[in-house]
C-alpha cells in the first residue's frame, strides 16, 4: 500500500482554512485579536473580582461533592475529637467532615471563603474607581447598574453561603435574617414563615439556601458578569486623557498577544494569592463555634466584612418603635429601618447616581475620557461622604470588639457611632472638596510657573528665589492649558535625573527611558530637552 505523504507543516493552515470555510471566523477573529485596550493599573481592579469569581466556581464545585444540605439531626462521629458525640445537623457534620476528613477539604473551604471576601472587596474597590473617575457616565450607565446589582447579588451569595455550614455563628446570622424579614410591615410574618417553611428555624432553610447558593445566585452572577463584560467589549474601555487620546479613539495595545498574556498572568497571580491565603490564614473556623443552638451565642459575633455595615446600622438605630393604634394595634419594629429601608435607599441611590448627576449637570454627551477625581470636586466629595458613611457603619459593626480592645465604654461607642454617622460624612464632603480645589490649583500653578528645580538663586538685591523650570516652550506664563491628566511636578519626571539603570544585581545594557507619566507610554520619542542649569530666574 502506498503511504500518502502527510505534510505536517501545512496541517495547521489547512485545518484553519477548513474551520473558516465552515464557520467564517476569520474576520471576527481578526477583530478580536486586534481590539485595542487602554492600559492603566486601576483598570485591573474589576479583573480581580472576575478572577476570584472563577476561583469561587472552581472551589465551590469541589465543596458540593462533600456537603450535605440537610438539617436532619445526626450525632457527630468524625475525626475532630472535641465535638464527637454532639448532636448536630447533617449540614454542620458534613462541613466538619469537609474540614477534617476530606483530604485537602479545608484548604478548598478556606480558599472558597477567601475568594468570596476578595470578590466582594474587588467589586467595591472597582466601583470606587469607576465612581471617582466618572467612568459611569453616558454611555456606560447600564454597566454601572449591573455593577451595583453584582454587589448586592454577591452579598446574597455570600450570606447564603456562609449560612450553609449551620454552625453557631452562621445560625445566629440566620436568626437575625429571619428577624429582619419579620420586621417588614404587613407581610413580614408571612414572608418569614414562607421562606423558613414555618417557624424559625424549621427544617428546610439549609436546603433552600443551598439551591439558591449553588444554582440560582451563581446563574444570576454569571449572567450579569457576561452582560457586564459584553458591554465593556462593545462600548470599548474608557481611557485617561493624554497625548493623542480623544473622546473618539482608544489608545493602548492590541488585545493579543501582550494584553491577553498579561491578563492570563494576572489571573494566575490572583489565584496564587488566594491559594496562599486559603492555606495560611484561617477563616471561619466553624469547629470552634459548635453547632447552632438557639440559646448559645458568644460576644464578638461578627458577620463577613461586607455585611458588617448593616450590622453597624442595626446597632446604631435608636429604639424607635412605631405603634399604629388600629384594631388590635400594629407595630413597625426599629429593626425595619436600618436593615430593610437603608439598603433599599442605598440600592436606589447607587443605581440612579449616573442619571442624577447627568440631570443635575444637564449633561447628555457621551464620555469616553476619564476625569481625575480632583477635577470634579463635587462628585469626589459625595463619594468621600458615601465612603465615610460606610466606614462609620462598618466600624460600628465591630464596636463591641473596639470597646473591648481599647477599653472604651460600649455605650460610648454606640453614641460615637450615632453622632459620627451624622457628623463625619458632611465633614468628609467639605474636606475632600477643599483638597480637590487645592490640588487643582497646584496643577494650574505648575503649568503657569513651571516645576520647582530645587535650585536656589540669590538675586542682586539679596533676595533668594527658587528657579522654576517652565513647562511651556517659552517663558511666557499661562501658556499651557490643563487637559485633565497628570502634570509633572518633579524634575525627574522631566528627565532631569537621567534614566534609571535597570537590573537587579548588575545593569542591563539598554537603559530604560524615563517615563513621561506612570502608565502612559510615550506616543513618540520626546524631543531632547536642554539641560537645566541655574539659568534665568522667573520674575
Amino acid at each position: 500500500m502506498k503511504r500518502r505523504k502527510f505534510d505536517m507543516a501545512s496541517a495547521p493552515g489547512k485545518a484553519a482554512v477548513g474551520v473558516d470555510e465552515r464557520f467564517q471566523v476569520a474576520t471576527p477573529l481578526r477583530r478580536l485579536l486586534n481590539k485595542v485596550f487602554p492600559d492603566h493599573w486601576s483598570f485591573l481592579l474589576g479583573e480581580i473580582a472576575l478572577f476570584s469569581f472563577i476561583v469561587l466556581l472552581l472551589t465551590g464545585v469541589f465543596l458540593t461533592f462533600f456537603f450535605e444540605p440537610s438539617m436532619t439531626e445526626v450525632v457527630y462521629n468524625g475525626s475532630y475529637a472535641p465535638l464527637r458525640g454532639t448532636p448536630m445537623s447533617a449540614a454542620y457534620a458534613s462541613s466538619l467532615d469537609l474540614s477534617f476528613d476530606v483530604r485537602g477539604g479545608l484548604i478548598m473551604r478556606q480558599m472558597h471563603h477567601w475568594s468570596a471576601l476578595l470578590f466582594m472587596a474587588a467589586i467595591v474597590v472597582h466601583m470606587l474607581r469607576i465612581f471617582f473617575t466618572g467612568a459611569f457616565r453616558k454611555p456606560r450607565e447600564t454597566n454601572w447598574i449591573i455593577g451595583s446589582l453584582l454587589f448586592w447579588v454577591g452579598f446574597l451569595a455570600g450570606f447564603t453561603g456562609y449560612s450553609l455550614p449551620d454552625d453557631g455563628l452562621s445560625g445566629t446570622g440566620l436568626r437575625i435574617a429571619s428577624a429582619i424579614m419579620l420586621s417588614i410591615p404587613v407581610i413580614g410574618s408571612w414572608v418569614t414563615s414562607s421562606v423558613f417553611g414555618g417557624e424559625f428555624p424549621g427544617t428546610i432553610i439549609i436546603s433552600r439556601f443551598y439551591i439558591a447558593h449553588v444554582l440560582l445566585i451563581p446563574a444570576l452572577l454569571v449572567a450579569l458578569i457576561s452582560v457586564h463584560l459584553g458591554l465593556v467589549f462593545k462600548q470599548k474601555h474608557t481611557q485617561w486623557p493624554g497625548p493623542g487620546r480623544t473622546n473618539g479613539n482608544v489608545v493602548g495595545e492590541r488585545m493579543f498577544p501582550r494584553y491577553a498574556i498579561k491578563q492570563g498572568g494576572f489571573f494566575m497571580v490572583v489565584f496564587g494569592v488566594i491559594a496562599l491565603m486559603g492555606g495560611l490564614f484561617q477563616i471561619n473556623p466553624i469547629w470552634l463555634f459548635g453547632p447552632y443552638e438557639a440559646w448559645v451565642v458568644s460576644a464578638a459575633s461578627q458577620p463577613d466584612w461586607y455585611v458588617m455595615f448593616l450590622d453597624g446600622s442595626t446597632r446604631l438605630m435608636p429604639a424607635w418603635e412605631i405603634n399604629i393604634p388600629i384594631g388590635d394595634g400594629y407595630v413597625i419594629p426599629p429593626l425595619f429601618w436600618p436593615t430593610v429601608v437603608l439598603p433599599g435607599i442605598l440600592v436606589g441611590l447607587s443605581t440612579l447616581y449616573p442619571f442624577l448627576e447627568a440631570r443635575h449637570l444637564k449633561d447628555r454627551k457621551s464620555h469616553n475620557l476619564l476625569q481625575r477625581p480632583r477635577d470634579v470636586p463635587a462628585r469626589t466629595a459625595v463619594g468621600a461622604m458615601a465612603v465615610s458613611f460606610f466606614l462609620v457603619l462598618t466600624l460600628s459593626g465591630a464596636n463591641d470588639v473596639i470597646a473591648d480592645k481599647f477599653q472604651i465604654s460600649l455605650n460610648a461607642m454606640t453614641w460615637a457611632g450615632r453622632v459620627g454617622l451624622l457628623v463625619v460624612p458632611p465633614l468628609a464632603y467639605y474636606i475632600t472638596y477643599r483638597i480637590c480645589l487645592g490640588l487643582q490649583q497646584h496643577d494650574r500653578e505648575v503649568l503657569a510657573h513651571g516645576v520647582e528645580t530645587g535650585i536656589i538663586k540669590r538675586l542682586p538685591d539679596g533676595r533668594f528665589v527658587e528657579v522654576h523650570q517652565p513647562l511651556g516652550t517659552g517663558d511666557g506664563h499661562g501658556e499651557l492649558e490643563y487637559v485633565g491628566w497628570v502634570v509633572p511636578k518633579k524634575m525627574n519626571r522631566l528627565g532631569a535625573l537621567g534614566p534609571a539603570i535597570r537590573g537587579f544585581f548588575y545593569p542591563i545594557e539598554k537603559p530604560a527611558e524615563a517615563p513621561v507619566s506612570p502608565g502612559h507610554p510615550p506616543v513618540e520619542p520626546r524631543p531632547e530637552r536642554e539641560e537645566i542649569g541655574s539659568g534665568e530666574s522667573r520674575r
Partner: protein
Amino acid sequence: MSTQTEHQKVPRSRQSVDVQDPGLTRFDIVREGARRDDIEIVHYEQQVLPGTKAERRLTRTIASMFLLTGLAATAFLVVYIWWPWEYAPGRGGDKWYTPLLGITLGVALLGIGFGILTWGKKLLPKEVSIQDRHEGAVAADDRIITGQTMLYMADELGVKRRPLLGISLLAGLAPVGAVAAAPLVGGLISDPHKNNQMFTTGFAPAEGGEKVRLVREDGRPVRPADISAGGQITVFPGIDHGVSNRHADSPTLLIHLRDSDAQESRRANERVGHGDYMWGNYAAFSKICTHAGCPASLYEQQTNRLLCPCHQSQFLITDNARPIFGPASRRLPQLPIEVDAEGYFVAKSDYTETVGPDFWERP
C-alpha cells in the same frame, strides 16, 4: 488643545495594501489587518533586542519561574499524598498540612503567573495603537430603516386595526403567567399563625393542663437550691425536644436575684400586673432578644443588666427586663414560675407576651 496638536503629528496611512503581495513582511500584513479594523499602530518597539545579554537574562528568569512552578506543584503532590493529614489532637504534623498545601499551590500559581507576566511585559514589544471608537457612527439612515421596519411589522400584525386580537391575547396570557407563578407561591406560602405558633412556646401547658417543668440543657429539672443568689442558668421546657432548635423561642433565663434586687423586681412586677410571676427571689425571662432574636445571654451580676451580644441591647432585669440601651424597644417577656409538689420549677402558664423579635401584627 495640546492633545489635538500631538494627535495630528502622527502620520496616518490609509492606503490599503494588497495582502497577496509576496514582498510584504508578516508585520506588514498585521498592520494592514489593524488598518482594516481602524487601528493604527503608531509605536512598536522591541524591548530587548534578539541575541542580547538582556534577552538571555530575561529568558533565564522566566524559565526559572516556570521551573519553580513545576517544583512547587510536585511538592504539592508530595505533601498531598505523603504528609500526615488526619486530624489528631495536639500540635501534630497534621496542623501543617493545609498551610503546606497553600504554600506549594500558591508558589506554583505565582510562579506561572509572574513568569507569564514577565514574558508579556518585558519580552514582547511595546506598542501604542490607536483605534477609532466609531461611537454614534450608526448612520441616521440605519436608525430610520430599523425603526420603520419594526413599525412596519407592527402594522402587518394589525393589532391597531384588530384590537380584539391584542386584548384577547393579553386576556389569554395573563392567566398563563399566573399559572407559572401559582405553584411557586402556593407551594412556598406557609401560614405564620398555624397552631398560633408565633404566640406560643414550649412552656404552654399540655392539653390536660399539666404544667411544664423548667429543665436544664441535659434535661434535668431544676430545684431552687440549684442556683445561688446572683446566679442564673438557661432553662428549657421539659417536653420532647424542648432542648433543641425546634423550640427556638423557648430558651429562658432563670435568675436567682439577691434580696434587695428581688424586692425591687417584685415592685416593678406589680406595677405592670405581673405580681405573681416570680417565685421567691427567682425570676424567669425569655432569653430571646426582642430585637433580632439573638440570645440575650450576657448577664452582669452587679448591675442586673442583661446584654445581647449581637446588637448590644441592654435590659434591666430588676425593672421587668426593660430595654435601657441599644436598639431593642420591647421588654423581654417574663415567664410566670412556681415550684411544684416535688420541689421543681414549673411554668405556671406560657409566656403572656410574645417572645422573640417584633413583627407587624404582634400586639
